């Protein structure tokens, strides 16, 4: 990569010692350690729920540690509020941007530290300062634009400027590339380089191994709330990091038998649709999925995947085009009709679309069937049949804890909630199964479980459409990969020996040479 390190090993700027943070009975951080030097990019690696965010929230003053010490520039500190951390030079850029939508860029940057003139806020001075900072670190922003009108990339630059404006010496970036395009990621890496060259330190929270090897000096690995170790990134490779993160050797490869795809199940032709703002986002989209194959739809978030799935499942009305399942027209049909015509799906957001958290698991498991026998008769629910159905599925799909049929779905862990959804959708046994980011936020064991059932559907000669922002997942599962960019398919490659660089190129809008 040819990256130059700006780390000054003689100066320790941050030291966290034996940090413990408990929430009730749950220990989120169990004796965590961290040392960051001036000019260093220090990655924190861990699975979802490993305790990365808790650790950073302790460092930026949002949480008070149950025990342990924090040293800044070798002096011990106690934060009573985020303000204390800000004052001492620690700034956090949150994964979900903390921006006030109807405020301008300048107003957001100065919020909480407004320069004043008499009684009123001195907007001219504020604007000047923002422009100065943005030029100094090469971060282009429009100081007068409202947040709701600017791109995700610019919003992130605003977040970074916000902490710089507060005089941050150490910047914590929480999953900063989650919703960026490849070009924007490159731009971010440049910004990180500019910042460290200026003597700032960066803490990078991520679970993307490639970014760590490309950008970081050191990496601290935590697992299930515990500190595992800190390694020098130049000494290790991605596989080592993965093994340390999970705690065992991981085999991301999925076993699949060879299959010959059969007839076309889903056919999408020249589909046009608008997003929630009324802007066209699907611009003549084509796709087909056959029996016995998993088609992976790869792409950066925001290129029309969400809208495509909503159109296919009947949640969004498209402008024009053709959508058929086994020749039957399902274009702009209601969710009920698309389901009846053979489309089931594992939705992207299991708490928003997948489950009714307040409902019991048994009620969630009959979501599409509560009006059918044996679950109800003449409008009266048959509790016995509902319970029997649930108990069968809970057993079969290993939902834990056992006997949770009558417990609200909200009491289950994320992985088990996903199991409930998969149990429901796989049992529906429709011609086409759409899975959207089916493993987001799950631990490794649950990921393997989900993948197993997707492959099983394919092996049963069903069609599977996998929409995922995780390229690794797409590459390990798909028989064929289609790449979506700006509402269109920009390329199609067989899943076997697909080349990551080539896919990345297409995901950024480059067409393959034909």
């Amino acid at each position, binding site marked *: 990569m040819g990256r130059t390190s700006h780390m000054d090993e003689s100066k320790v700027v941050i030291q966290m010692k034996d940090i413990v943070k408990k929430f009730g009975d749950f220990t989120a951080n169990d004796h965590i350690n961290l040392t960051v030097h001036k000019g260093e990019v220090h990655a924190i690696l861990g699975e979802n729920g490993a305790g990365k965010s808790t650790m950073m929230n302790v460092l930026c003053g949002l949480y008070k540690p149950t025990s342990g010490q924090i040293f800044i520039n070798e002096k011990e500190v106690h934060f009573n509020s985020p303000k204390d951390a800000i004052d001492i030079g620690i700034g956090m850029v949150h994964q979900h941007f903390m921006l006030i939508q109807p405020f301008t860029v300048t107003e957001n940057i100065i*919020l909480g530290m407004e320069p004043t003139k008499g009684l009123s806020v001195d907007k001219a001075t504020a604007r000047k300062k923002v422009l100065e900072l943005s030029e100094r670190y090469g971060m282009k922003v429009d100081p007068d634009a409202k947040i709701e009108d600017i791109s995700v990339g610019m919003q992130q630059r605003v977040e970074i400027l916000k902490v710089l404006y507060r005089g941050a010496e150490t910047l914590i970036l929480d999953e900063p590339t989650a919703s960026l395009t490849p070009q924007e990621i490159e731009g971010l890496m440049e910004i990180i380089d500019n910042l460290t060259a200026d003597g700032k330190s960066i803490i990078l929270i991520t679970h993307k191994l490639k970014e760590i090897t490309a950008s970081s000096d050191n990496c601290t690995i935590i697992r299930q709330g515990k500190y595992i170790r800190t390694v020098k990134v130049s000494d290790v490779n991605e596989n080592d990091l993965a093994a340390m993160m999970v705690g065992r050797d991981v085999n991301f490869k999925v076993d699949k038998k060879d299959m010959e795809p059969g007839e076309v199940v889903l056919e999408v032709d020249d589909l046009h649709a608008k997003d929630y703002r009324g802007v066209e986002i699907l611009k003549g989209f084509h796709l087909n999925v056959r029996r016995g194959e998993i088609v992976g739809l790869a792409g950066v978030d925001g290129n029309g995947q969400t809208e495509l799935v909503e159109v296919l499942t009947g949640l969004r009305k498209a402008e024009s085009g053709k959508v058929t399942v086994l020749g039957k027209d399902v274009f702009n049909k209601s969710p009920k009709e698309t389901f009846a015509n053979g489309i089931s799906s594992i939705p992207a957001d299991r708490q928003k679309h997948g489950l009714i958290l307040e409902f019991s698991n048994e009620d969630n498991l009959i979501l599409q069937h509560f009006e059918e026998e044996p679950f109800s008769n003449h409008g009266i629910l048959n509790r016995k049949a509902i319970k029997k159905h649930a108990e069968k599925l809970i057993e079969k799909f290993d939902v834990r804890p056992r006997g949770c049929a009558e417990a609200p779905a909200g009491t289950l862990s994320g992985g088990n909630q996903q199991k409930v959804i998969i149990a429901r959708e796989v049992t529906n046994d429709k011609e086409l199964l759409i899975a959207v980011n089916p493993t987001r936020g799950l631990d490794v064991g649950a990921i393997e479980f989900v993948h197993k059932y997707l492959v099983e559907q394919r092996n049963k000669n069903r069609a599977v459409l996998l929409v995922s922002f995780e390229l690794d997942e797409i590459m390990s599962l798909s028989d064929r990969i289609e790449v979506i960019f700006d509402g269109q398919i920009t390329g199609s490659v067989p899943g076997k020996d697909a080349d990551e660089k080539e896919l990345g190129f297409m995901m950024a809008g480059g067409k393959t040479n034909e």
Partner: protein
Amino acid sequence: MNGLIKDLGLLINATLIATPPLLLAALGSCFSERCGVVNIGIEGMMTIGAFTGAVMGLTTGNGWIAFLCAGLAGALFGLIHAFVCISCHADQTIAGTAINFLGPGLALFLCKAMYNNSSDTPAMDPSCKLPKLFEGVFPTGSFWNNVLNVYAVAYLVFILAFVCWFVFYKTKFGAHLRAVGEHPEACESLGIDVYKVRYTCVILSGFFAGLGGAFVTLATINQFRPSVIVGQGFIAIAAVIFGKFSPEGATKACLLFGLCSGIKSLAAQSNVVSPNLISMIPYVVTIIALVLFVGKAHTPAANGKIFVKSK
């Protein structure tokens, strides 16, 4: 022609009497709604203010002190609402409903306890009331007397509306209160004390509502009665929504509703249109305004949502 001008003068006068209580309550409501706490208890807070104003006017004989005390009584109820909604994370609509029980209930209870089981306070001597600004300057019944010789507080209220606008859009506190109503988590991460800002705003909303209620008993009429506050609190909320949650918008809406009220009190004398039908106008107008404009109005994003401080 002369008659027309005289009627116009009377209408303006009636509008200037009906608007201040609405506007005071609406300005208070702006603070509360914009910082993210729904306050439908405004009506109850006004009633408490109206009662306190009357009692203090009778006991101290000084309209201004009575007016201030009424504000403080409203602020006390604001504090209750703030505590229940902000610190205890209660459902804000339900808490407001409870305030609407407590306010009038307590006012009437105390009234009966203090004044020999009567639900009205005794009438006040005019000297105890809030003063008019140009008393005796213009001839009685003349156009200018009707238009300019109104209660001094009416003038103050419009100045206050301007002050609120300035606070909202020009000061640090204003930026914080608007930000807290949009994205409290973001504010917290920047070191802004969300609870403090919200407490301040909700207590202010009670203070203003209390003042609004007291205007009715200390200026419009001269005593407290069970029916002094009938829906003004809700009209104030309507005005805030109609005015897109901004002090300047709420001011315009209150003037419009005040005008409706002015027409009502004039029409009541002429008996042409039922005052009951005219009384409906603010509510119907609000519904129509919501239907026509709500898509474009920006409701504070965190309004009514419970925010829990990090630990």
